[in-house]
């Protein structure tokens, strides 16, 4: 029996409904899956893919000699990412053990959670890293290596370099000021992620490759920097000073060769936030008379033969009285500078006129920022007085009612030394490009002309006189001729709005060598006692720095042009000098060949007894290593080596070792030697070297 008609009709109605529904759903799917497919696929792509940053390597920093002064090392970071509760337990237990914690504390201390990233410790110490590597750490705990800054010279030059934080971002000094240059640009990689925003796959190739940061070459000479820092410390100890600071510039290019301060009470020497040589300003005192003298000479108003009466040490000017340290009588201009007479300079300055003097100070960059590129540089203070009364003029001429920082003083003296050009102190010589060449040839940045070239010669002679028979006799050196000016200024007591009676800023600013100045600089001691004079505290420190730098660097004072940057050498084509001493020359030759080191020796057989440069020094590929070989049967007899083509410095080093007397004619490289190569050497041998710059 078939169903009743009504049943069949009603069944049919439902079937029509079913058919309609399937038709509607199919059409809907056509719409979604065919017409909207492209749009929807893009949205899906967008929500399930993303980018992740790839860090760029921070640029390393070289000094002017190609020494690496800031580099990157990879340090281990321990982090936890437990996948489940079991892993979490194991990780917590392991950490309790690793850090000797009370069992059960690691979990809360490091806020460990399942599927949550937690740093446990960044920059693990070496011992801890070794232990973690040696223990097979439980799953959920991982090591990853992060790039961190390391400074091969330790604290030396740290005040200039500054430091970076744990994420390798510059926090102070050069690292901060040039952070964007050093940091480079991070790259990007494509990733896939799930709906819980977990990254689960990184595409093989980076979308945008990271651009490593540039590696700058600083103008600073780290050897001088080291000397300066050492001497400042010694000066503070020796002269009982509260602190000391110094700046040294290449007076012909404006390159900052060294900048430092030393304060025994400074905390956190590892992470200096301040470079007092550019941030701290002070009343310079007599050192400033050099600029006054420059102004007077520029004006052409002083007659060198005229004598000025220095009032025997007391001179009433306006309502105040000026004093000299000694009772000085009639002095000519030169003597006034040499003996630093306040009364003499005041009389000359008043006669010359305050406004003109004021203008000449401005030409020396006083009261303006020199913009050396480091953060925190101050401008000093040079305010025109309400009226240029005789006393105001006198005070200014003596270096009172004016404030400078050490960098300004050094730059001013550099201008005097180089013939009158005020150059911008330069920190950066260039950078090493991707091929390892140094690019960005240094151009000196002339701020303006401080004085005419003709006037500087007289002033330089005066300043030399200060050292030879003036207030700075202890600065006179047998090694290098120094010229400069001392300063001893009272320190203002800001609380009581007067000067401390027994606290002085002792300073010496100058340049060396006098005949052909290369370096200008200033050393400032804060509150030395009981000796307070600049000529007896800061001066000797200056002298020692100058002497040590000259001894260390004989070439530079002969051919200042020969600088790393001008030679555009490939920095990556350098080698570390191997230790040859004590080895057989044949073995040494093998090593040298292997490492691609050029050798210059004296004999075909024997043992190496001396080498220059010493082991571990970094040299360029084109440089040679000089070795001295002692023949096996005649231990103390040497033969002369071929010195032609060597730098004076190398040749001198060898001759010094042999104990040979020598004279040098010209400069540059050796072209001729009076003792032929191969000749035996005895105690009376004397050698004449002819040199030519090349």
């Amino acid at each position, binding site marked *: 029996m078939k169903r009743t008609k009504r049943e069949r009709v009603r069944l049919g109605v439902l079937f029509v409904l079913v058919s309609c529904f399937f038709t509607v759903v199919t059409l809907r799917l056509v719409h979604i899956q065919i017409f909207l497919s492209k749009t929807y696929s893009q949205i899906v792509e967008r929500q*399930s893919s993303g980018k992740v940053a790839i860090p760029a390597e921070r640029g390393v920093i070289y000094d002017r000699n190609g020494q690496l002064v800031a580099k990157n090392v990879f340090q281990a970071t321990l982090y936890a990412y437990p996948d489940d509760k079991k892993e979490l337990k194991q990780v917590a237990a392991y950490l309790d053990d690793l850090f000797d914690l009370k069992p059960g504390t690691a979990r809360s201390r490091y806020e460990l959670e399942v599927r949550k990233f937690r740093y446990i410790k960044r920059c693990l110490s070496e011992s801890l890293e070794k232990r973690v590597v040696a223990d097979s750490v439980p799953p959920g705990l991982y090591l990853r290596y992060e790039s961190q800054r390391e400074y091969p010279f330790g604290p030396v030059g740290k005040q200039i370099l500054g430091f970076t934080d744990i994420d390798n971002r510059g926090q102070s000094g050069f690292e901060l000021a040039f952070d964007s240059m050093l940091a480079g640009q991070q790259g990007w990689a494509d990733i896939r992620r799930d709906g819980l925003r977990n990254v689960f796959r990184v595409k093989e190739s980076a979308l945008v490759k990271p651009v490593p940061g540039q590696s700058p070459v600083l103008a600073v000479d780290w050897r001088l920097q080291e000397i300066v820092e050492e001497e400042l410390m010694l000066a503070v100890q020796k002269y009982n000073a509260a602190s000391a600071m110094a700046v040294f510039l290449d007076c012909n290019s404006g390159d900052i060769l060294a900048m430092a301060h030393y304060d025994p009470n400074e905390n956190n020497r590892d992470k200096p936030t301040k470079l007092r040589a550019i941030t701290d300003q002070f009343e310079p005192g007599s050192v400033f008379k050099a600029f006054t003298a420059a102004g007077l000479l520029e004006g052409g108003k002083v007659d060198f033969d005229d004598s000025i009466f220095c009032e025997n040490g007391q001179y009433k000017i306006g309502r105040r009285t000026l004093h000299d340290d000694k009772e000085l009588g009639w002095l000519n201009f030169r003597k006034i500078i040499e003996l630093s007479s306040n009364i003499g300079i005041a009389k000359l300055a008043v006669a010359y006129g305050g406004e003109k003097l004021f203008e000449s100070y401005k030409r020396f960059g006083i009261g303006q920022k020199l913009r050396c590129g480091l953060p925190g540089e101050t401008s000093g203070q040079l305010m025109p007085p309400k009226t240029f009364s005789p006393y105001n003029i006198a005070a200014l001429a003596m270096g009172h009612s004016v404030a400078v920082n050490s960098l300004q003083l050094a730059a001013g003296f550099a201008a005097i030394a180089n013939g009158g050009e005020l150059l911008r102190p330069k920190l950066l010589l260039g950078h090493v490009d991707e091929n390892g060449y140094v690019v960005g040839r240094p151009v000196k940045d002339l701020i303006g002309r401080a004085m005419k070239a003709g006037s500087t010669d007289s002033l330089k002679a005066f300043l030399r006189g200060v050292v030879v028979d003036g207030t700075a006799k202890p600065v006179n050196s047998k090694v290098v001729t120094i010229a400069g000016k001392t300063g001893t200024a009272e320190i203002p007591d800001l609380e009581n709005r007067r000067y401390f009676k027994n606290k002085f800023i002792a300073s010496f600013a100058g340049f060396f060598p006098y005949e052909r100045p290369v370096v200008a600089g200033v050393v400032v001691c804060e509150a030395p006692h009981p000796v307070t004079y600049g000529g007896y505290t800061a001066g000797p420190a200056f002298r020692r720095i100058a002497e040590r730098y000259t001894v260390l660097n004989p070439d530079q004072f002969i051919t200042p042009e020969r600088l790393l940057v001008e030679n555009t050498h490939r920095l990556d084509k350098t080698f570390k000098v191997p230790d040859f001493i004590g080895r057989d020359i044949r073995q040494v030759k093998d090593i040298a060949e292997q490492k691609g080191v050029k050798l210059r020796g004296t004999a075909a057989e024997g043992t190496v007894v001396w080498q220059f440069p010493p082991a571990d020094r970094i040299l360029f590929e084109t440089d040679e290593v000089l070795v001295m070989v002692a023949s096996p049967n005649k231990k103390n007899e040497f033969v002369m080596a071929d010195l032609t083509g060597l730098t004076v410095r190398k040749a001198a080093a060898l001759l010094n070792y042999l104990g040979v007397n020598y004279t040098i004619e010209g400069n540059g490289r050796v072209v001729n030697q009076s003792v032929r190569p191969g000749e035996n050497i005895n105690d009376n041998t004397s050698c004449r070297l002819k040199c030519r710059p090349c």
Partner: protein
Amino acid sequence: MKTFRTKEQFDEKLFFCYLFILLVGLVMVYSTSSIIAESRNGSHLYYFSHQFLWALMSLAVIYVILRVDLKKLTIYSAPALLLTLVLLVVVFFMPIRNGAHRWLVLGPVTVQPSEIFKFLMICYLAFSLSNPKRNITNLKQLLIPYLPLLGLGLGLILLEPDLGSTIVIFLTTLGIFFLAGARMKHLMLALVPQITLALTVVFVLGYKKARIINYLQSVEDPLQGSYQLKQAVLTLGSGGLLGTGLGDGRQKLFFLPYPHTDFIFAGIGEEIGFIGLLVLLSGFFFIMHRGFKIAAAQPDRFGFLLASGMTWSLFVNIAINLGVVTGLLPVTGLPLPFLSYGGSSLLMSSAAVGVLLNLSGRAVK
């Protein structure tokens, strides 16, 4: 009248179609659930292995149903239904899962009594309405005893809360009454007040008004809809014509919610594309078609009501799920028969097919 009452004879086409969809379901449950299973349960096979067991049990259930005389068994449907009502109460004493009291936890097995209630309700209605003494056109006879029974059951399910199942059961029974010959005005009486009440609640009292308005907008542009709906249509859309390939779906990576249960249709659509879905839809349609055909060929009113009731019930389930996934209906949590992960749903849908297969054996040739 000639009937065949052989246990061996049944609608093979229906059975193979069912088997095909069941197998597709197993594969897709694995594909869509493996990552979630790995992440939540530590084994990528967690959901698949469960579903596999349920599938085996489903086949066993079908085998058993094929061997019984349904007409005799349905005598017990009334007491069984009463027992299920008790279970629906017991559910409230069970721990909450996913914010609802839907599951009866018996050791490792969890059962959804609402699914059993739905199944038994169809059996009971077929049994009861096929009683020749019952005059369905009489409103009084229509209301008693069905209204209290249905009202109580639906009320309990609604309280769980399980709006999806409530609607499915309501629409299923409505369909059966329609097939049984109830008067249209009586049926309207059941439908109109509900709809009026719902509209009043929503638009006058403002309860969930925003959600409804949002739904209406989302029918036009599904991306304006809820997160679940948005992800569902994105999943379907990114599948395109041919799909991303088996196992290569991206949306199951925690973008698409419930990719292996309520939204498995979208997950399948992403991997096998429009063409694949068309095959699946044809399968569903074929089951509907066979079901109605079996119903029409039944020798008695009981068989007719039971077969068409089961088919209709499957359809309502499928329709609401597909409607939700494709953004045609507002989101209600409801599994897709045969495909979604879940034992109760699979067992009861399979039982429905089993009943159809059983009845196909007694169809008039």
